[in-house]
């Protein structure tokens, strides 16, 4: 080839019908696949799903005769919804009317804030959920029967709050482990869902930062 790329570009579009815009159909209803839009849609459905689940949990547990546990779990689920609503609003504030670098960085920061926020929330959510279920179970007829059986079998068992001490220690250890690992579990879950998106973002930002350093 003898032409420069600038010449090819200029000459290529002089008499070209290929620059005619394609037909666009029903744009308003088109399902967007932009990362930000995808998140908005996903968030909306996630929150609706959590609200439905919270109502179902309350209804089912009330029907089973344990309304307080139902109310507690529903309240915790609603705290996830409140957090989600907050994130939804902050996502809408992302501005595309900035440089590519700023746009990608702002979206990346939003993702990091989202993960940090939810990781903290889940650190309390999972232990609280576990403890509430265990506590409720402790005072059921079956729970009481199990404890009575253990006490009869091992009469020397040290008791605390009318419960074998080793059970309390076990529950405490599991709660602490849930506290420390819930965040990690959430991040793993997040990465498994959005790994492709995160990788793409990371590559773009890294390329952009290299460009800024040159």
């Amino acid at each position, binding site marked *: *080839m003898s032409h420069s790329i600038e010449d090819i570009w200029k000459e290529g579009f002089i*008499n070209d019908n*290929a620059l005619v815009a394609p037909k666009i159909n029903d744009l308003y209803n088109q399902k967007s696949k*932009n990362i930000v839009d995808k998140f908005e849609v996903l968030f909306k459905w996630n929150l609706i799903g959590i609200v439905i689940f919270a109502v179902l949990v309350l209804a089912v547990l009330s029907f089973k005769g344990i309304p307080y546990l139902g109310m507690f779990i529903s309240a915790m689920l609603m705290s996830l919804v409140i957090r989600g609503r907050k994130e939804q609003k902050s996502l809408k504030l992302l501005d595309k009317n900035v440089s*590519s670098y700023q746009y990608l960085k702002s979206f990346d920061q939003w993702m990091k804030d989202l993960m940090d926020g939810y990781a903290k929330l889940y650190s309390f959510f999972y232990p609280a959920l576990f403890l509430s279920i265990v506590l409720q179970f402790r005072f059921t007829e079956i729970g009481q029967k199990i404890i009575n059986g253990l006490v009869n079998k091992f009469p020397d068992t040290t008791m605390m709050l009318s419960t074998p001490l080793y059970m309390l220690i076990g529950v405490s250890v599991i709660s602490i482990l849930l506290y420390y690992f819930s965040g990690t579990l959430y991040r793993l879950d997040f990465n498994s869902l959005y790994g492709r998106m995160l990788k793409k973002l990371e590559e773009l930002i890294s390329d*952009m930062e290299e460009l800024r350093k040159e």
Partner: protein
Amino acid sequence: MGSDFYTAFILPHAAIIIKICRAYTNNQEDFEDYYQEVCLQIWRSKDRFKKQSEWSTWIYKLSLNVCLTYLKKAKNNQQHFVSDSLPAELIEDSKNFGEQSINQLYGAIRQLSEIDRGVILLYLEEKSYQEIAEIIGSNTNNIGVRIKRIKDRLNKILNIKES
């Protein structure tokens, strides 16, 4: 989207959007999806246009941001290894314009990283280094160096010997 808005504010700048979208897609179906997505985002973001820049510059900026974050058929957008000659399938896929040479140039541009594609398109559209730096979010000196490197790479792919 109102057809009036599309006709009055987007269609006159369709060439910009087409040129950018072509660089991020390998086939007609993906191209039309990207084009629609850019138009949709322009319409959605129109209230954020602050008239600090030209409408056309704003369209460049928004089109690039949308193309960089669009997820449609990502496999087609995977970066290709640099080779001395264009792979046959790329040449075949990129026959989008009447001129064979521009198709080959686009085929070569598609082998660049996503950021480099944006930089070279803006350069070929005769945007100043300052405008490119502003749109991409870099500084003017770095853009000059990067363009030189991209051009060398494109020349190598297209087998162009610059005088």
